[in-house]
């Protein structure tokens, strides 16, 4: 019983939140890694692209809610999500047309593109704050829990409850669908193959007649899907606040680099590495250890390695270790 309780507590506070957060980070890191692989710069505007996508989705969610449209137990935001994606696609194509294309034609150094992406970040951040404000917004509706802690306790008779939130399930399922579709696209379709070819060796790809502008356009479209989905899932799971999305940049970049910049599999692995490190290091282990250890050894403190305020520090330290030990990341990325 004690052992079962420990497992339940562990899943409740570490495993499930870790998987959900990891999926969100993985989606974000995939976007960063694709931009890096094809356009060859670190896109600092990615966090704010996520915020923009989430914002458009929220606006449509409100509109649908006002019309009385809903998905029953599922959040209304899911119907609004495709519209949010469309909005983000439009925004990204516009920024590419009016901002990035110029520097691409000039063959500007990557660091110039990074600075340009800073400017884009400012503008996107400004637009988001201008339209929806800088406050916390909660746009989750429908059923909150699939299993609530109390139901779980009565069902199993354990002391520990296991709460499984709808948003967590949606996050995991959506992330799996999106990732599967992305890999199918990259590996099976002609456009996907030309993207990979372009990413591996630009000159060879150009020689074989791949149209670079088309590859770039498809990349932005995919990035729009990934960013919007990641932004909406994060917003549903926690809440929407423009500044948090900016702060997500650090764990997202850390995930992409830990996995190997430019490598999609690596981005997913990196997302989970960062998410689980963050959750395990900032979780207070007292409860789990209390169940597992004999009474005499029971810890008196919270056994929390770091307070949750330092979760950025966790991704940062992992990032530093990877940069020191293996700068190309766990899976071989392009960057050295």
């Amino acid at each position, binding site marked *: 019983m004690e052992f079962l309780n420990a497992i339940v507590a562990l899943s409740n506070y570490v495993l499930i939140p870790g998987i959900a957060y990891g999926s969100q980070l993985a989606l974000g890191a995939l976007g960063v890694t694709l931009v890096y692989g094809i356009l060859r710069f670190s896109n600092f505007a990615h966090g704010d692209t996520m915020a923009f996508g989430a914002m458009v989705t929220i606006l449509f969610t409100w509109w649908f809610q006002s019309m009385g449209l809903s998905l029953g137990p599922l959040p209304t935001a899911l119907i609004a999500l495709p519209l949010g994606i469309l909005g983000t696609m439009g925004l990204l194509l516009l920024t590419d047309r009016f901002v990035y294309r110029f520097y691409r034609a000039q063959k500007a150094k990557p660091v110039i593109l990074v*600075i340009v992406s*800073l*400017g884009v970040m*400012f503008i996107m951040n400004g637009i988001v704050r201008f339209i929806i404000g800088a406050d916390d917004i909660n746009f989750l509706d429908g059923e909150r829990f699939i299993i609530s802690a109390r139901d779980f306790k009565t069902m199993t008779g354990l002391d520990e409850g296991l709460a499984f939130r709808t948003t967590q399930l949606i996050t995991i399922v959506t992330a799996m669908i999106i990732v599967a579709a992305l890999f199918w696209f990259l590996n099976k379709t002609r456009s996907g193959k030309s993207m990979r070819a372009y990413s591996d060796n630009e000159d060879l790809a150009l020689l074989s007649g791949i149209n670079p502008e088309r590859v770039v356009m498809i990349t932005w479209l995919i990035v729009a899907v990934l960013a919007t989905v990641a932004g909406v899932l994060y917003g549903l799971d926690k809440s929407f606040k423009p500044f948090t999305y900016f702060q997500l940049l650090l764990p997202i970049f850390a995930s992409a*680099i830990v996995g190997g*910049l430019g490598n999609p599999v690596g981005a997913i692995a990196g997302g989970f590495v960062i998410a689980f490190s963050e959750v395990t290091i900032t979780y207070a282990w007292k409860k789990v250890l209390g169940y597992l250890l004999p009474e005499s050894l029971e810890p008196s403190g919270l056994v929390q390695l770091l307070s949750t305020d*330092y979760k950025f520090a966790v991704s*940062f330290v992992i*990032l530093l270790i990877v940069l020191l030990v293996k700068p190309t990341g766990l899976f071989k990325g392009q*960057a050295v």
Partner: protein
Amino acid sequence: MSEGIRNTLLFLLVAGLITYVGYAQSLNSALLIIAMGLLSSIMALGVNLQWGFAGLFNVGIMGFVALGGLAAVLVGMPPTPGGFSAGGVGVLVALLMGGATIAAAVYATKKMRKGWLRTVVVIVLLVGGFFVFRALLDPSVARIEEINPAEYGYLGGLGWPVLLAWPVGGLFAAGAAWLIGKTALGLRSDYLAIATLGIAEIIIAVMKNEDWLTRGVKNVIGVPRPVPYEIDLQNDPSFVERAAQLGMDPVEGSTLWVKFLYVLLFGAVLLILLWMSQRALHSPWGRMLRAIRDNEVAAEAMGKDVTARHLQVFILGSAVCGIAGAMMTTMDSQLTPGTYQPLRFTFLIWVMVIVGGSGNNFGAVLGGFLIWFLWVQVEPIGLWLMNVITYGMAEGSPLKAHLIDSAAHMRLLTMGLVLLIVLRFSPRGLIPEK
């Protein structure tokens, strides 16, 4: 028009703008813009050292500025009575332990042969060291934070003259820059950007949460000043008399005088740093840095140590930002970790450097003043613009209210636009590098 005349005109234009503010709004706000413009220029000089001279992309300026602010508190504030005896020793021992743990881990990595044994030893050292560190730190921290939390609850500072904090702030920032530079320099340029972004967030997180050090979000107020207090001036008959001769009442006169003294102090620091930067730019060292920036491979082939030079200039530039941070906290005479925003303290400085002209020290100074002026004035202009746009709308319509409320967010939009437009149409900035 020759270059010299053009640059002089640009500086005169900014001076004119600020004079206009002094005339149209108040002398006080004009002096404040000058003081903050001086601080911004110093930060921009530091970033220009890194970006303009060496092509290093640092997006952690906020962190270095905040470390400077921390220095102002640690040096200038009087020590908390009983604080050091309660937990200060324990904290120091714990910090030394933490340092020793890391040193031991580094030593083990260097001395032992590669293999699983080394990995295990390093991990055991780090994990064990961490627990010892926490075991030593936590009780001392609790004891310090117990001391009169409403007023103290932290260790306090050394109580030394606050001017000493300015170089110390530079040293703090230099230390953090060394740590980052050691790991991230020599890799792709993007990595330095991400690493600096991270360290800035962490420095702010530490300052917000380590109450024993900085009082966290409770803020440290009343950091001592290097200039007299307004209230003392108002009680000083000779000052009141002088103010009256200028036609000012004592309250107005004293606030202006204090600001003016700060402007003098900051101006002196800026002049010294500007002189040093100019000398550095025209020295063999500066030429070497620019050669490295323009062609790393060629410079390396000529026997220049690229990574070492990069580390050097990265540390120097960050130290300049740290000095400016200490100066800013001194002028505010309070440390408020909650107000450090990356948009304000990192990206705004970048806009200053790019707009002013990267690689040119005078450009950085001009950019510092001009962009700070815009930053302050965009909000009223935005509000005015929104009032004009919504002029025809019905009173009380929700769209009108929303637009007017959102005027505050115009700042970000404007700064982003300015950055993109300058990068696109005049990438060398207002005063280009020679």
